[in-house]
């Protein structure tokens, strides 16, 4: 298949892994470094590519991949799920959502359980589908559960604009849209996580371009390479990071040129800022409150704001204590180091959101289980405690 097969070519993959091994070895020897290089893949799509194609198995031991928070369902806090349930169980409401949010546990139940109890909750593939449901059901109130990073925000923004243009008054948005850049800064400021470089999110960057990441190099001196999602994309991005380290430089580079323009998508960005404004505070699951990281509708579009229409509880609710999604999202723990991974918490009966989402790190480990990989860090960990 064009644009897929050429990025999965085993021969090219072998060359790249040889390059990675050589560059890593040179760097470690020259710097007399014993601690592994920690590279964070920000996006959950990268995490799944890494495990699906076994990239973790072919990397040198001196490279440790740290899984970042770039999975929007995983970082949805319990309180917001409860708020969604509050809206979804109102009379006359049709609650529409992307499928992977259905099983995220709230404090008492998930949307899927609420649906089983009779709430009218429907899966959609796009906010446009939700708008179509609103057109077809003028006597009902149709709420769209807006989720996602900058990648999905433009489609939501354009849908709200369309609703306004058509004068549709029974369509509402429950916005949980978030931005990734403040979160990367929060991770960089975390004292207990020392990273050596980033594989940047390809799809987000397709919208926002390269400029928002410049501070990562200017202030934190970390290489940042925007990466595609095929196995060769990921391997080439790691080579690009290692070359920067090897040459003692630090830059924002674009490996995903076939899709990402350096300036992003100005039309999409304009739609986003026409419709949305930053919230002063927004709480993330596991990461706490990150300033200026959430998006809410501007006053011009307040008539579509579900938070204004329904008196949501808006309570800050702690994650279940047994769940260690927070540590996983910050890259401090590997999923299999969580106390409930694979026992009490599985994709069928998830406790934490990282096990729910198709982009979650725990789901990646569980679904593409790498037992040899799991054993190797355990030995290292035990030896150092």
């Amino acid at each position, binding site marked *: 298949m064009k644009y897929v097969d050429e990025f999965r070519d085993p021969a090219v993959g072998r060359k790249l892994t040889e390059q990675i091994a050589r560059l890593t070895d040179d760097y470690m020897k020259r710097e007399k470094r014993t601690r592994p290089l920690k590279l964070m893949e920000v996006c959950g799509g990268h995490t799944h590519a890494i495990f699906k194609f076994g990239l973790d198995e072919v990397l040198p031991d001196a490279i440790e991949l740290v899984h970042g928070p770039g999975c929007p369902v995983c970082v949805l806090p*319990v309180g917001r799920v409860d708020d969604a349930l509050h809206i979804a169980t109102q009379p006359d409401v049709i609650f529409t959502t992307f499928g992977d949010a259905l099983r995220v546990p709230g*404090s008492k139940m998930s949307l899927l359980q609420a649906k089983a109890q009779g709430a009218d909750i429907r899966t959609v593939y796009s906010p446009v589908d939700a708008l179509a449901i609103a057109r077809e059901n003028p006597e009902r109130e149709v709420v769209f559960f807006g989720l996602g990073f*900058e990648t999905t925000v433009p489609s939501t923004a354009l849908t709200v604009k369309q609703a306004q243009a058509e004068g549709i008054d029974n369509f509402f948005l429950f916005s949980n849209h978030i*931005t990734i*850049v*403040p979160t990367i*800064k929060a991770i*960089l400021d975390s004292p207990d996580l020392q990273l050596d470089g980033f594989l940047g999110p390809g799809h987000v960057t397709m919208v*926002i*371009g390269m*400029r*928002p990441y410049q*501070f*990562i190099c*200017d*202030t934190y001196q970390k290489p940042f390479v925007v990466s595609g999602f095929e196995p060769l994309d990921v391997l080439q991005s790691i080579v690009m990071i290692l070359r920067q380290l090897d040459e003692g430089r630090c830059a924002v580079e674009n490996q995903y040129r076939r899709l990402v323009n350096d300036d992003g998508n*100005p039309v999409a*960005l*304009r739609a*986003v*800022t026409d419709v949305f*404004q*930053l919230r*002063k*505070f927004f709480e993330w699951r596991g990461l706490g409150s990150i*300033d*200026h990281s959430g998006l809410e509708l501007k006053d011009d579009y307040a008539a579509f704001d579900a938070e204004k229409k329904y008196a949501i509880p*808006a*309570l*800050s*609710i*702690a994650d279940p*204590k047994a769940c260690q999604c927070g540590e996983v999202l910050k890259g401090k723990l590997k999923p299999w180091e969580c106390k409930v991974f694979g026992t009490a918490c599985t994709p069928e009966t998830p406790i934490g959101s990282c096990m729910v989402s198709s982009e979650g790190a725990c789901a990646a480990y569980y679904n593409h289980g790498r037992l040899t990989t799991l054993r190797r860090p355990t030995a290292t960990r035990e030896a150092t405690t």
Partner: protein
Amino acid sequence: MTDPLAALYPSLGSSNGATGGVDDATLVTSIRTKAEESRRAQEAFVASAGLDLVRMARRLAAVFRRGGRLLTMGNGGSSCDAAHLAVEFNHPVTVGRHALPAVHLGGDVAMLTAVGNDVGFADVFTRLVIAQGRDGDALFGFSTSGNSANLLAAYARAKTDGLVTLGMAGGDGGRMAHSPDVDVCVVVPTPSIHRVQESHVLAYHVLWDLVHTLLAEAP
């Protein structure tokens, strides 16, 4: 026309990614929202656990009346609450209220680190109960989840040794709420750790007051 990136990322104008200041009105709104959440949590607590708190005060007053001591325990912020409760009894701030003997088990850093290192953290309070607890004393624990393993283990030992066992929890009360080793457990029915702890402060200040009121009565 405004730069969309500047609108989306206020940090762009800063070399270190820091965002601009938040105006005072927004911060005051944030304070007001949390204060309102806290008030609702306290009201829910009093409605659901008011009688249990009275029952707890009667049990604790009886312990002091017999000459027993209060041992307190908790982890993290709850350890601070445990220290706070102990100092309320040891050092009463209201004129006319006499000092009552209370020991904050988490204050013994040497013992905590010794047991934690040699045996395990799940046993730190149990070993202190063995060393300090006597038949007729009271053991009081704080846990926002109600599931702290080291507290549950200490309760089991205390029960065996004849101590009165009391506790404050949050959420659904966890295992503390249903453990046969805990005589009285009051639960703040909210999952927010911060709101639980704020209600705990209210609850143990009131508890201290109730105990002194009961002790002033004829036995």
